[in-house]
């Protein structure tokens, strides 16, 4: 008997949790939600006088502030949160693998599902906006980075609170949408602030945001949020009383 490498452990955790996360109900629900930005993108693209500004605004508010965080929340918070709730966490926790591998595998499983469910509809809507290739490319890059960061954040949330979806929605719609638009320190703790900064920076569209970090700072911050989220969930797994 030998212990496996961290990469093998991540792959195994990823494969188990991916199968658990993909349920018909979740996929149908989110696919339906994903149609909405496509339709809106088509309508806005056909009616707007300034498709670039309208397009970037639409991607920022509809995609990066609503669709991406909600989809990431649903899958990432369930990845370990559901296992803790239903008692299956023991089958990962008690194995001779590091807790960091478990949390990284959970994050990877969430990202694997959330990426196509967000990036595809957002990219299609960006194409329908008819605002140019820069918007399409920026939408793809920003959606990917945002999914990655939100997933890191919400994997942890699933391990620290009882109703992670409710808490996550409160974070998205109260903290990010309201508090962060009035208080700069709060905006610095909002993922959407950084993702919006990337898309506006890449397309050279200017909005009057309270918090407007540079593109490089924003990318760095999203990476830091991702790593911190995974590390924190790993630490949480170490301290957890496993049912």
């Amino acid at each position, binding site marked *: *008997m*030998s*212990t*496996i490498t961290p990469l*093998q*452990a991540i792959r*195994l955790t990823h*494969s*188990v949790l991916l*199968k*658990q996360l*993909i349920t018909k109900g979740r996929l149908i629900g989110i696919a339906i939600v994903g149609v909405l930005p496509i339709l809106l993108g088509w309508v806005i693209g056909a009616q707007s006088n300034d498709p670039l500004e309208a397009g970037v605004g639409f991607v920022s508010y509809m995609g990066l502030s609503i669709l991406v965080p909600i989809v990431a929340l649903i899958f990432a918070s369930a990845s370990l949160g559901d296992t803790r709730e*239903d*008692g*299956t966490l*023991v*089958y*990962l*926790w*008690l*194995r*001779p*693998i*590091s807790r960091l591998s478990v949390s990284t595998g959970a994050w990877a499983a969430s990202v694997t599902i959330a990426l196509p469910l967000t990036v595809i509809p957002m990219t299609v809507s960006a194409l329908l906006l008819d605002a140019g290739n820069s918007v399409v490319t920026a939408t793809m890059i920003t959606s990917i980075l945002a999914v990655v960061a939100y997933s890191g954040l919400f994997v942890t949330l699933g391990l620290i609170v009882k109703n992670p979806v409710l808490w996550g929605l409160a974070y998205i719609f109260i903290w990010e949408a309201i508090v962060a638009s009035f208080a700069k320190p709060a905006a610095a703790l909002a993922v959407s602030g950084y993702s919006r900064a990337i898309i506006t920076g890449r397309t050279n569209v200017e909005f009057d945001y309270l918090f407007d970090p540079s593109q490089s700072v924003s990318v760095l911050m999203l990476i830091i949020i991702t790593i911190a989220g995974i590390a924190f969930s790993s630490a949480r797994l170490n301290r957890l*009383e*496993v*049912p």
Partner: protein
Amino acid sequence: MAPKPPPPVHMIDVSGASKTFGNVVAVSDVSFTLDAGVTALLGPNGAGKSTLFRMLCGLTTPSVGTVKVLGRDARNDTPVRGKIGLSPQQDALFDRLTAYEFVEIAARTHGVANPDSATTHALSLVDLDSVTDKAVGSFSKGMRQRVKLAAALVNDPQILILDEPLSGLDPVQRNRMIQLFHDLGSQGKCVLISSHILDEVARIGSQVLVIAQGRLAASGDYRDLRTLMEDQPHVIQITTNQPRKLGAALLEQEIIEGVTIEQEKLNITTSRIDSFERSIAPIAKSLNVSLNEVIPLDDDLESVFRYLIEGK
């Protein structure tokens, strides 16, 4: 002077372990050591068996005391976790995986050298080799128990901790699994099995730990505990068409010490349980009395605990 040899490392060593959840004491000052062989942990529901098991596996930390498995703390020692096989009490499984996938994941995460053959072997040990491709979510309770057992066995662990592993199994499967536990025990593994059913424990292992209200009420050879119990008068209820006649005959032959009658029910106390069991049918036959039902009223676990804890 030769240096003092280090104390022996037991496979399981629990020393003064207590666990509290708020004001609730789940396990209180429990100490024992275990080595190779099969040991049954007997206790009623809510006695603290699962909490004790969770402490052994490191799933929860003791509030006081120490819990060591192979001399290590399973919570913080990754290699020692690879030497433990746990079948938890909860019914939850990764329902979307097939039986094969469920056990194979356990094999692979344990770094088993040949995970495919280990998985096949573990599933055959629990008689699930014909349903390997079925999702465990579609399994009956007994099959779920067995797939948990297969996952616990797949890494050939030195320590097996099985929480109520026989619940939901049919009698044939119970016998098969009990035989399997004995085989594992005789191979040098430390097998600790919990149960709240007295008769089940009698068949699981000669070594017994009895836990009640979070405390270790007794430990040792099951036969000794049973003998201790048999010194106590047994209370038995007999349903018959002529309770007075039967009661009088049993008293006359000094097989019973006390009797109360309630309609057709005769409640007797006896210290001579073997004589009683041998004679009740012949006596009833000789008196031409029908015996409808003979039920022991104190052969339940609560009675055992009442005696062990309170001495009555």
